[in-house]
């Protein structure tokens, strides 16, 4: 109880301090909370940015396409590497090395190749989501108990049955975790892509507000985008808990 009270005190003190500091120094630059709330209202009633819904839908569509592609390629890549020993040992280290590169270095090339539109954001979101999914499949395959595979085969289970009844259930836990991380990174990838250069979508609105020094609108847009990000992760978390209960 005391802990919760202390947390609330810190939060309120932080907001109050911010409000005070912003008012005393430069309200335009530091956007006090009292200015952010009206801006949020203007944004949500479509006064400041009438194309908010279209932008939100575009960003969501980019995320959805990138995520579906990342799941497909990640599962395919992961199983190809995980089920074949030599292939896995040959390409696993290459994949790990590429994962160590900060992904944003690929973005200018993607932008050159796919242009300023949706395609480059989808490609970047896909790239970010692909790695954790592939790595989760690899880790999941390593978790499968080899004895169970032997027993299943000894009892005459054919490869598709072994795959569906033995492998997938025992790696589901790790796999679903990887899918959740993949979604989070896909979302970040699309938004980073939009902020680094786009004409439409939430990132473009954020850049527009920032470029015109409409700082309170910028804060409002950031809050809306944050809801989108947190919401997608909460949804993934729900699915994750479902899957965990199913395996447990």
């Amino acid at each position, binding site marked *: 109880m005391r*802990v919760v009270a*202390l*947390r609330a005190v*810190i939060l309120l003190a932080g907001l109050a301090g911010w409000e005070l500091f912003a008012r005393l120094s430069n309200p335009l*630059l530091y956007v006090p909370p009292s200015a952010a709330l009206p801006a949020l209202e203007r944004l949500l009633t479509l006064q400041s940015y009438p194309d908010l819904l279209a932008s939100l839908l575009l960003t969501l569509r980019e995320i959805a396409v990138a995520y579906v592609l990342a799941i497909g390629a990640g599962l395919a890549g992961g199983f190809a590497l995980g089920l074949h*020993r*030599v*292939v896995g*040992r*040959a*390409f696993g*280290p*290459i994949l790990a*090395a*590429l994962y*160590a*590169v*900060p*992904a*944003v*270095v*690929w*973005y*200018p*090339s993607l*932008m*050159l*190749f796919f242009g300023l539109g949706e395609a480059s954001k989808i490609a970047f979101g896909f790239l970010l989501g692909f790695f954790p999914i592939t790595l989760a499949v690899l880790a999941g395959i390593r978790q499968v108990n080899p004895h169970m595979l032997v027993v299943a085969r000894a009892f005459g289970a054919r490869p598709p049955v072994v795959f569906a009844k033995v492998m997938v259930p025992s790696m589901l836990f790790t796999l679903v975790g990887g899918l959740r991380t993949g979604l989070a990174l896909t*979302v*970040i990838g699309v*938004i*980073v892509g939009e*902020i*680094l250069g786009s004409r439409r979508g939430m990132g473009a609105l*954020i*850049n527009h507000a*920032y470029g015109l*020094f409409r*700082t309170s609108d*910028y804060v409002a847009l*950031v809050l809306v*985008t*944050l809801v989108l*990000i947190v919401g997608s*992760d909460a949804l993934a978390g729900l699915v994750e808990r479902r899957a965990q209960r199913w395996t447990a």
Partner: protein
Amino acid sequence: MSDRARVRWLQALSVLGVLLAWEAVARLGWVDPLFVPAPSAVAGAFTRIGRGALAGLGDTLAKTAVAYLLSVTLGVGLGITIGSVRTLRDVLSPFVVVLYGMPKILVLPWIVLLLGFGTTPAVVYGTIHGLFPILVLVMGGVRDVDRNLISVARAFGASTWQLYWKVILPAIVPTVLAGMRLGIVFCLLGVLIVEMFAGVRGMGYVLGSLANGFQAPELFAATALVSVASIAIVLGLDALNDRLSHWRG
């Protein structure tokens, strides 16, 4: 043929195969060389961008080094403080988790607005990027230090200073190393993003302006340069990590 040799062969052959196929596709004119230059053109571009790109890389790595130093110092210091004091940990954990999970890209425009273009926003943003993974790991590591070790040390009359220096610090060395391994990529990522968004120097700026100028061979060469540099840094840290954990036993 042994497995090891087969793996090496497969790696070499596939890399070579991809390069040859790419060269062939580019030469045959199946792709527009304006967007997808042949590997030979990329190799030629290395000499053209050489000096400028190396200067940019040096600039980026210097910023990253400062950001990294700051995030490790702050991350480990705050992590030990928050992790070892029960009340602080209980009260502050949710704030740390929220800040850790919050996509930093959303505050980037604001940071640039506050700090302008140049070195400072890159260092600050790189630090913010690297700090939280290290902080979260170290907090967890300190929380999970074996309680018995602490009770025994206390029972034998260890002072608070000795408790931190002789018990907690050695116990969290692996966690700190893991955090440092994770942090470097985040710092580099943060610095590069700022340079792309609002840079006037550095590798991110070089990459961005090459893309805007449609100089595809130079862009690919510069991308390869940063990639190799970051892979080398991470592998170097891994090797250091191995050696240190070996030494610790």
